[in-house]
């Protein structure tokens, strides 16, 4: 008898989540607006000295990206949890980590990718060294998927809790530290004229590690949360 294969299921789920995101465009824009607003606040707080701003631009952009991605995490599983679709995913004959990966990928496409697109504009406003633009985009490209992957574990652990949001940041932010360190450092060394190969390859390593391990942890956490 005909049945859909695992890869078909993966693409189907990915497409479905993108479709749902497109039908809720207002929600889609929230993390992006947050990202822009946080970055706008920095010059207001530390002063508009162009030298200072261009020196801390990489750090500001990354801290803001980190907070924006954390803010959007809850939407990975929230609506599926509330309407019972998550239950059905757990009862699927396909391995749950693969389905989780599809959902996290969709989440990254709607929350991480826009950051990538708007980052050059913000970097320009903060006066980041123009040589560092390329590497800034590369770190966002390599780093934000790791944030979504790690974050999905935290969301899966707290999805059933009435006040999961506060505890989620406590669980997830410490785990974000390595990504932040290497991303900010990559941009910094490139601004000072050195190559950032070491930092970028570390970030690539983090990405592969997160890709292979975190869906398994997320799947286990979802099973726990649903019981």
């Amino acid at each position, binding site marked *: 008898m005909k049945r859909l294969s695992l890869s078909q299921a993966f693409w189907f789920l990915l497409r479905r989540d993108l479709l749902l995101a497109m039908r809720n465009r207002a929600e889609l824009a929230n993390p992006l607006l947050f990202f822009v607003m946080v970055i706008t606040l920095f010059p207001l707080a530390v002063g508009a000295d162009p030298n200072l701003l261009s020196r801390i631009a990489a750090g500001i952009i990354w801290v803001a990206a980190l907070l924006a991605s954390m803010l959007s995490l809850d939407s990975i599983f929230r609506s599926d949890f509330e309407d019972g679709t998550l239950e059905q995913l757990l009862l699927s004959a396909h391995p749950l980590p693969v389905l989780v990966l599809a959902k996290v990928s969709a989440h990254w496409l709607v929350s991480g990718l826009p950051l990538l697109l708007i980052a050059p504009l913000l970097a320009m406003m903060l006066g980041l060294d123009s040589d560092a633009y390329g590497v800034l985009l590369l770190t966002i490209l390599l780093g934000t998927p790791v944030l979504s992957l790690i974050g999905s*574990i935290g969301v899966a*652990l*707290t999805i*059933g*809790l009435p*006040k*999961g949001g506060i*505890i989620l940041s*406590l*669980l997830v*932010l*410490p*785990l974000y*530290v*390595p990504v932040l*360190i*290497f991303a900010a*450092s990559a941009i910094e060394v490139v601004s000072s004229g050195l190559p950032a190969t070491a930092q970028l390859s570390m970030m690539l390593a*983090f990405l592969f*590690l997160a890709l292979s*391990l975190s869906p398994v*942890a997320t799947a*286990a*956490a979802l099973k*726990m*949360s649903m*019981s």
Partner: protein
Amino acid sequence: MFKWFVTWFHRFGSPPHFYRLAGRWLPWLTTLFVVTVIAGLYGGLVLAPADYQQGESFRIIYVHVPAAWMSMFIYVVMAFCGIVILVWRMKMAEIVLSCSAPIGASFTFLALVTGSLWGKPMWGTYWVWDARLTSELILLFLYLGVIGLYGAIDDKRVAARAVAILSIVGVVNIPIIHFSVEWWNSLHQGPTVTKFDKPSIDIRMLIPLLLMALAFQIYYVIALFQAARAAILQRERNSRWVEELVKP
């Protein structure tokens, strides 16, 4: 040997046995702790010579370093319990994991505070973004996450499974975090930090340090047994053996 281990494991795995054994062992452990800690303190505060660079202030090492060691050791114990919980769903592992978290957090807290108290005379400031202090601070956040998550879930069996997953994720991440912070620090560190790194340590300084480390280990077992006894009683309040226990 293996058979002995399995029976021992099973006996420790049953809450009533653990409760009784822990109760019986506690006085002995406490005595042992008092003896080791007195020996360690005497050796560290009186017998050990002052450090040629740091003078008497180096004696903070006798609480700072054992506390830092314990903070990492306890997290590893928790992750090990986490695996036992997920694979065998063992009740005692749940209790050990949940009771270890506050103890580990307090050791981490101690390592941080004593570290900064040591830093004031050495660096001239209470806090520098030194690699060890920074990763210890992140470790404290990880502990607080475990405690917070365990407290937030009402059904304690479900809560135990949640923190089991979290501590396994954490233990995979700790080396990565530690490495990143070390690496980050090597780019930014000031010159004074290297004062800590000494090629060798006087044997009269080392022995008290090891004694204090042993004392802290024993203390961990004592505190864990104490907390586990309370937790067992609370969890098993409806069971037969607790009823027998509290019969007038």
